[in-house]
């Protein structure tokens, strides 16, 4: 039988547990609220004053152009891995020629946008958080503000615009490479008939599937930019603080991408049904 003391201890443990959960919920809510305000401030600056061309071009180059090799490599390998993983299952049923539909649909709608965004949350998001975090701890952000300039206008707005435009383009590149990678492996390694592979792939997918993935990537890009800039701006002091900002930025971006993916998938399917009816091919 439990002693009165152990009952008191378990009561205390429960209280502490509830307090911990409550504290975590309050922190998460406050953080979400602060990030939403940060997002609104960024939009407000974009309406009031467009970022200068040199700042925008530098961000487009850093975020877009420099990510092309890694994103193409990622996309190509995802397509090939999909081919390897699916080929034996499809062959059992004699459906190898249908592999193209499965690979292309996966790339267009899910794997392309989600894996490209995850890759970019690591490459671009962490770099933004670390760069802005370093600027914060070396007082460069304070220096901007002290000169009457808005740090959000100069540092966040160009990165936000660059992520918003470049991440969908990079996703298209990743998807294209995935489609090519899958086709290459199926046709040249597994010896699937190219005519039926390509014909089935074309018939089984639609323009909507491509638009579907690009719309998702647009939201993923915005989320990566806001989370990484916010984390950089709120980095704590020292190398450890900057490192933590970069890590938290990636983790939060990754979780946000997955959560957004679910809601966007539901929303976009409903939008498709509302516009063109259930099962319609667009």
């Amino acid at each position: 039988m439990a002693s009165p003391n152990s009952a008191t201890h378990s009561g205390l443990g429960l209280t502490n547990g509830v307090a911990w959960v409550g504290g975590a919920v309050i922190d998460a809510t406050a953080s979400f609220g602060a990030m939403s305000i940060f997002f609104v401030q960024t939009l407000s600056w974009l309406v009031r004053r467009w970022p200068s061309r040199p700042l925008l071009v530098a961000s487009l180059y850093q975020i877009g152009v420099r990510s092309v090799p890694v994103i193409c490599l990622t996309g190509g390998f995802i397509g090939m891995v999909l081919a390897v993983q699916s080929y034996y299952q499809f062959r059992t049923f004699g459906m190898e020629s249908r592999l193209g539909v499965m690979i292309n649909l996966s790339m267009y709608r899910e794997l392309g946008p989600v894996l490209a965004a995850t890759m970019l949350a690591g490459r671009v998001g962490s770099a933004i958080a670390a760069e802005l975090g370093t600027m914060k701890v070396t007082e460069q952000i304070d220096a901007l503000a002290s000169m009457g300039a808005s740090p959000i206008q100069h540092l966040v707005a160009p990165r936000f615009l660059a992520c918003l435009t470049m991440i969908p383009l990079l996703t298209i590149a990743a998807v294209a490479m995935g489609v090519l990678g899958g086709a290459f492996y199926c046709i040249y390694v597994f010896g699937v008939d190219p005519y039926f592979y390509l014909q089935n792939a074309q018939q089984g997918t639609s323009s909507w599937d491509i638009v579907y993935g690009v719309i998702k990537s647009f939201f993923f890009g915005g989320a990566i930019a806001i989370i990484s800039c916010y984390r950089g701006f709120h980095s704590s002091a020292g190398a450890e603080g900057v490192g933590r900002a970069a890590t938290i930025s990636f983790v939060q971006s990754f979780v946000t991408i997955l959560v957004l993916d679910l809601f966007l998938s539901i929303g976009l399917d409903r939008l498709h049904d509302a516009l063109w009816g259930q099962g319609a091919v667009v």
Partner: protein
Amino acid sequence: MNAPAPAKDAKKALVAIERLSVRFGTQTVLRDLSLSVPRGQTLAIIGESGCGKTVLLKSLIGLIQPTSGRVLFDGEPLGGMSDRQLTAARTRYGFVFQQAALFDSSTIEENVTFPVLEHRRAKPAEARRMAVDRLRQVGLPESVLTKKPAELSGGMRKRVGLARALMMDPDVLLYDEPTTGLDPIMSDVVNELILRTTELGGDDNPVTSIVVTHDMHSAVKVADRIVMLYPVARLKPDEPQIVYDGPANKIEKSSDPRVTQFVHGEARDRLEELQIA
């Protein structure tokens, strides 16, 4: 003991604070401070590390929001200003940061011309000419324009920071530890530059300077007036945080042992407190 009354001449002063307190979580850094700085005065704020000097300096320009009390610039409370008014007020300040805070991805030219390109929409050639003028004023050649901050020494970076702060012909210059980390000769060069910049506006519009420093030699050399802050954690609840406020040349004669300990750099009881064997 009552808290010190707000400075009577706060409205006439160019920069003033009234019953300013700043807390970070449970830690109080500034407690009920009132101070006013008349136009043209050079004020040095001294005190040991962690007493809130930099927090005070950043509060003066709105980089840190006070927990209570207010900051006045030219008679107007900073807290009541719109974004546009605050931006306009900040263009009348120049801030020289402890580590210069130059934008490390930009060249010296981009750093120094930034304020005039941002606010005056100056043409690049004109901005460059102004940058060369200001760099010469602080003893730097035109050739540094194309360099990145990482290519310069600490003293050069501080002088570039000063040149950038001078670009908008400010009414108030704020210096955060301007001589920290410099050799004695370069420290004196910076002190001389501070003295010369106070004369830039002439008799009609003299520059007001507020210098945060640990360096007593520097404080006595550049300042008309010295204010010494004491860490809140070491004060009794009713003691004021300002332990000296007076002419720079009289601080040596202060009867307050906390002031003399700092001025003469004596460890005294701190060795025991820190449990150093």
